[in-house]
């Protein structure tokens, strides 16, 4: 079931029992503006940290390569843009951003993030794979791309994305290692593929 605005509002103010079962979206700077009862999502703001790819001596990103993580670090630069200033996303440029808000989902909610259509119409594509799993805690990383022909100025503090929340079957308990790669990270970071899968593909022989 997709939660409506007033359902989200009720959950945001429900603080019974174990915090693991709380829905936390913090801070909501303008509750009325970000969460309308008639809508089925809550608007989220852009944070101040960006990560951008830079041209460097790194020749490729190969997840099978041992230096994959190091290469990614060399390939990405962090840019801090305080609220009040702007970040320029050039045509066809890719950058990672983050929501200003910290999101903590209970064990019976999941969500997904979509760019607000206001910006999509300008050529800004946000979020290509941002499913949010039950029990997640942290800001959400946003994948930003400008598919238009002229630079787009991004202002931290403005609402760029919307979070849809779904009721799911309740997970009783999260285990060590469950979706934890990015839990509690506060910078837009890129991830690592599953080791098991990489091993499988490496050993794969044509039948």
């Amino acid at each position, binding site marked *: 079931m997709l939660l409506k605005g007033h359902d989200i509002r009720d959950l*945001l*103010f*429900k*603080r019974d029992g174990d*915090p*693991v079962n*709380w829905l*936390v979206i*913090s*801070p909501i*700077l303008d509750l009325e503006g970000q969460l309308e009862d008639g809508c089925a999502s809550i608007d989220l703001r852009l944070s*101040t940290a960006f990560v951008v790819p830079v041209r460097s001596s790194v020749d490729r990103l190969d997840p099978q390569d041992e230096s994959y993580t190091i290469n990614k670090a060399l390939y990405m630069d*962090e840019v*801090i*843009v*305080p*609220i009040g*200033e702007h970040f320029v996303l050039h045509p066809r440029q890719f950058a990672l951003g983050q929501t*200003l808000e*910290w999101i*903590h989902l209970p064990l019976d909610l999941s969500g997904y993030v979509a760019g607000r259509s206001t910006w999509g119409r300008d050529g800004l594509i946000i979020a290509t794979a941002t499913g949010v799993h039950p*029990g997640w*805690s*942290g*800001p959400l990383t946003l994948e930003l791309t400008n598919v238009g022909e002229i630079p787009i100025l991004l202002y931290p*503090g403005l609402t760029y994305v919307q979070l849809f929340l779904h009721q799911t079957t309740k997970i009783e308990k*999260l*285990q*060590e*290692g*469950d*979706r*934890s790669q990015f*839990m*509690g*990270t*506060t*910078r837009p970071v890129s991830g690592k593929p599953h080791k098991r899968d990489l091993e499988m593909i490496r050993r794969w022989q044509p039948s």
Partner: protein
Amino acid sequence: MALKGSLIDTVLEAARERCEALEKEATRFENRRFPSQGPRILLNLVRRTNDAIKGSLRAIAEDTELRELLTPEQFELKVYRHTEFLPYLHWLLSFLQGAEVYDTPYALIPPLRRFLRKCLADSEVIFSSQHELNYSFFEVAENIRRLYENAGEEKFKELVKEFPSNFIAITFPSVETNHVLLHCMIAHEIGHGIFVRDKLHEKLFPLVRIDHIEITRFARHVTKPEHPKSQLELLPTELQVRQSLTKKINDSIDGWLNELCSDAIGLCLFGPAYYFAFLNFIVSFHYFDKTALTHPAPRLRLRLLSEMIADGDSTETLGYAPYFDDNVSRLYESWKKEASTERELGDPLYRIVSQAVTPLLKMIANTAIESSKELIYKTEQFNKTDELCRLLVNVIPPVELVRTHGAEREITDLVSVLNAGWQVYLSSMEEFAKNLRLDSSKNGPESKERLLQILLKSVELLETITRWKEVQIAIKGTRH
């Protein structure tokens, strides 16, 4: 005349080169991002001063009449009146070097600046990371004003007219940039500012009782006529030794009072968070009885802090101890016991200083509490941090507390967040790591790193909420 002319040109040319290099460096900083206004204010002063020097040097170079009128000495002095600023401008730029958003815990700077301005009204501040395992405090405005006003040139006086009346530079160790909990040491640095502002030296120094008999005994020991006669003439007299010792002891007492008072003020401002940061920082690279002319031994500093933290309703205690959880209580009690153990210092000079200062610990605590007044981190506030710890352990930034009645959100404060952070750091890291669901192999350093990140994010969010409200009020104000 020819020689005079060529020397002058060399001096002017060399000075102009220095200015051009400085200008280049200042331009480099112009394009950087800083987390608060302080660095820009300082950069602006450096640029304008450099421009003024360059302008003056050009004018001097072009003024042929002046060359004829002045003697070489007068001319040299005229040029020096301008170039004497150059080394100082370099020193000011050194603070900018570590002040960029990438060199600082940038999210912590705006709320820290806000906090500092509550303590020292009308102050501007620059936080700068330096490659030094140290936190330091410099009040630069007074020096700048003195230098500019004594320069004898009207334009330099003009330059500092709009400069803040207090401008503070606080440095912190660059390799610890993200250790937001360690940066509670900055409370001690703010203490230095309050020590100067309230002239606490004048309140405390008259109460110091120096053991002059001990000084005399020591002076006699140093000058006793056991040496061969031929060497005796080379040795200082007893009186000279006494004078020099007394001066050293007075200077040392000055330093110790300043440090101890700043510790006590740091505790008043940041509560137990300062105490834990002090412990974590100081014991990591000092031995417990390491004493210096400027700084008392950690043992004495810790004794003062432990006594102030203890339970009690006297005017020199803050009484946080009863609110510690079991783990923190055990840690506190063992450090308190260690700090209260008397150890005689080996160096007779430090022994005399210690004997003079130690009886004043209660008075120092009292004076610090009196000076901190409305800014004291109260036990009621500290008691509430339990609720914040519960959030933090569950990987939720302790920024907003929802009060179910009326759906109100209560915003927490910087110091409470830091105190909650320390308690989790000391007591609940296992539970925190479990909630992060990290692989067990990553539990140690990785979970600590994430805790520090969440705390940094928390203070960033706190500042965003505060600024949002301020701007809302400002907009409402302009509409009316």
